[in-house]
């Protein structure tokens, strides 16, 4: 089933990736923007990865975000709550030539589906995970999610939520994800760039996308999406560039002697003291430290945290199959049945 011949990929337009279904999100929902950016970059992704549209599959769980596959004119599977990574596992291992995407929400991925996410990442299954984080349960109408802030008042926590929020990217790094990034629904350029890089990555790629739910959690990401404040509140990560931010690029994030992060004015330190961002670090210590930076004490890092080459799960599986075939030439079925504790009854 493996496609070995070079494919003749048609030249796609954005429209080729829009299905005939009308999106059913609330007017103003951040999901629209994400859909639009994704459709916009798909032609380039198809071309660069030489993946025809029919080899693209979007698998989702349940949630507003998980309706996503219906709007993509590719193969799509709207599965059950939290389990999209498990379907992706079965699909991708049996069909490594496909480009499998998982679309999920903060509840879907981190509450009911947290374990599958963790195991998907540690396996380095070749799958691109788009986690729409709106810090709320949209579809079930406004309960707190695992990324809701401590003290968040929602329908199910009228006096405030009592659990500390999970940090999706810290969990992803601890799970050894090989590609880790963050984007924002309202920043189309960043979104396009990050999604494209995720698509080009071979292995588990997770992109946390801050997504505004204007019905149940409006403005949750205003600090990073409002034009006037966003440059001061975000730290754009770029490989090989220093960790500098601010509208005037006048602030930097550095680590002190105890390796604790702090913000300093660039004017106060010498250029050589700046931390240079490196997405290819094997050891995840520093990248993890970056993922821990929290607004308002720190700017919110966005962009690509990590992009590391490593064999994928399905590669390892199929290498084993091939190696086994080489070492032990394929047993014919008859031979297999005839083995074991046998004896012959003569005529």
């Amino acid at each position: 089933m493996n496609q070995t011949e070079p494919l003749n990929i048609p030249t796609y337009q954005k429209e080729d990736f829009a299905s005939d279904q009308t999106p059913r999100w609330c007017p103003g929902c951040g999901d629209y923007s994400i859909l639009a950016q994704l459709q916009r970059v798909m032609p380039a992704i198809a071309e660069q990865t030489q993946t025809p549209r029919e080899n693209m599959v979007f698998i989702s769980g349940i949630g507003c975000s998980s309706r996503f596959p219906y709007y993509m004119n590719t193969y799509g599977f709207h599965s059950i709550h939290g389990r999209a990574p498990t379907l992706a596992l079965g699909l991708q291992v049996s069909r490594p030539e496909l480009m499998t995407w998982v679309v999920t929400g903060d509840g879907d991925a981190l509450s009911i589906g947290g374990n599958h996410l963790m195991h998907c990442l540690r396996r380095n299954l070749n799958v691109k995970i788009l986690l729409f984080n709106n810090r709320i349960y949209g579809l079930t109408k406004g309960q707190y999610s695992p990324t809701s802030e401590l003290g968040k008042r929602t329908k199910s926590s009228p006096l405030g939520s009592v659990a500390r929020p999970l940090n999706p990217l810290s969990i992803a790094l601890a799970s050894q994800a090989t590609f880790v990034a963050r984007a924002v629904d309202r920043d189309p350029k960043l979104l396009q760039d990050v999604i494209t890089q995720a698509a080009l990555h071979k292995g588990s790629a997770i992109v946390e996308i801050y997504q505004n739910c204007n019905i149940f959690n409006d403005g949750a990401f205003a600090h990073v999406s409002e034009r006037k404040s966003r440059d001061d509140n975000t730290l754009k990560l770029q490989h090989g560039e220093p960790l500098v931010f601010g509208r005037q690029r006048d602030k930097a994030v550095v680590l002190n002697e105890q390796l604790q992060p702090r913000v300093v004015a660039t004017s106060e330190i010498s250029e050589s003291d700046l931390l240079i961002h490196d997405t290819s670090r094997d050891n995840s210590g520093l990248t993890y430290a970056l993922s821990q930076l929290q607004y308002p004490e720190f700017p919110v890092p966005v962009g690509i945290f990590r992009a590391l080459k490593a064999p994928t799960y399905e590669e390892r599986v199929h290498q084993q199959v091939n190696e086994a075939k080489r070492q032990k030439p394929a047993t014919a079925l008859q031979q297999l049945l005839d083995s074991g504790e046998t004896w012959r009854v003569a005529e």
Partner: protein
Amino acid sequence: MLQEPKDKHSPNTHLSQAIIRFAGDSGDGIQATGAMFSHNSAALGHDISTLPDYPAEIRAPAGTIAGVSSFQLNFSSRRIHTPGDRPDVLVAMNPAAVKAHISSLRPGGTLIVNDDGFDEQALKLAGYDKDPREDGTLDSYHVHRAPVSTMTVESVKALQLAPQQAALCKNMYTLGLVCWLFDRDTDFIEALVEQRFAQESEVLREANCMALRAGYNFAETTEMFSSQCRVETAEQSPGLYRRLSGNTATALGLVAAAQLAQRQLMYCTYPITPASDILHELAKLRHMGVIAGQTEDEIAAMGAAVGAAYGGSLAVTGTSGPGVALKSEAIGLAVMTELPVVIINVQRGGPSTGLPTKTEQSDLLQAMYGRNGECPVVVLAPDSPADCFTMAMEACRLAMKYMTPVFLLSDGYIANGSEPWQVPRVDQLPQFRTNEPVCSETQSQFLPYSRNPETLARPWVVPGTPGTEHRIGGLEKQDGTGHVSQDPLNHEQMVQLREQKIAGIAEDIPELDVFGSSAGRLLVLGWGGTGGAIRAAVEEAQAKGLDVACAQLRYLNPFPKNLAAVLDAFDQVLIPELNRGQLRQLVRAQYLVDAQGLNKVQGQPFHTSEILEKIENLCQQPSEAVA
């Protein structure tokens, strides 16, 4: 000493059948001993049936009753169906083994004990105040005592093994005794030992063979037993035979089905007793392209199976009852998306964790109804270890032809038990049809929920196929297009279509066979792993002249289409089950037949005698007039 004790102690009694049980500590190598003796018996031309039984702990405390492991073998010159009720010969390696098993030894049966196992500590651990060898407890048996441990160590002295290692050979010494008792030489078993230790040290191989021969010679020399006996060989049609356990048979059936269907086999699972061996078997077959993998849990295993099926593989998942509970949500998804997945449940004692290493048939209704909504699936159940091969293939065939999840209900008894299997020739196996779309379906407007008019199956169009991009999922689908639909009448129609698709399979499965006359006083209706015991009991009852027949259901949903007629032809119906009446529930509801139950929930298979007794009982009741 055995079943036909014409002249008990004369040399070379000829028997048609013998039942032997080995029992000892989990560390005593009981399972290996039993397996080798079974293979030997089969190779000698006997029909065989085996029953391994071991504790839930990896290694339960040595010397305790909880730590006793046992292996029973029935070998015979006739076609047999069960490992037998009560052994004729019991081999007990320590007091705990005596304590645990003596009550099942047939009165007048032979007991072989390892005298070295009977120190004070061991007696205490087994809960004996007095030594049972001396207080009259064993008076009704022929007891043969041998200092097995000492003599084993003695026998391998030449090899200068560490005493502990030497003692490990004591199971082979015992096997030597038993070989002599049944008048067979040790060559075959020596050959098995060679194979088994082929990768390991030569010394070990040698030691085991020496102990084996020493045991044989001891029996021969000391006249430990007053006589030998020989079980006649069975008439078997010529060909290659294989001793096959249910789990191995299942694994082979899946591999065969994948090859016949030309699909990649993806076995997605999470380890659980007693199903894990299917995984272990399949994991060995990477060189045949089989992908068998362990996921993080059963939910993931089921999800991965759905994903693999979606991708066009023959997707299978295996587990036991608690795992099925976890899979149930995703099974519902497979029903809604109409994807072919085989779900194997090797049933064990429940509820909850229950009795993980014991057998039971109490997950039938879970297979039928253990999901939200109207969620029909196919349910099959093999009726013997070797039948697992056939029914595993059948499960795959139906799943792929009808685009549906199929349950295969095996159980601990047949999964671990074994019987001889005449190895089929691959070119004679049935051909497979899977539900690939006909060409026209991929053209113009593709309808992922269009249906094959005969099977009602939707097309199995997989990602990677150009021009048929489409979306599926767990929300109700619009007939034809597969779009999400909340339309009330469409929902009703889809619920009915899913129901009809499964019901229609009745046309595609064999009718139910009745053993015995096709009408009469009593029908014993069973399902799955109780097949052997029921058949054996009915044969005995018929031999006694009773008007009884039996039929074993291997198709539980849908039922074979002649089931109504079969039930109708009998005055009474008895349904023996290792549960509290689950098939009975289904039969009563569907056919309004006042079926009676014989229900045993002890983690143990039926004894033939239990079923026979019930049959006799029912046949003695005054029969009601029948039109």
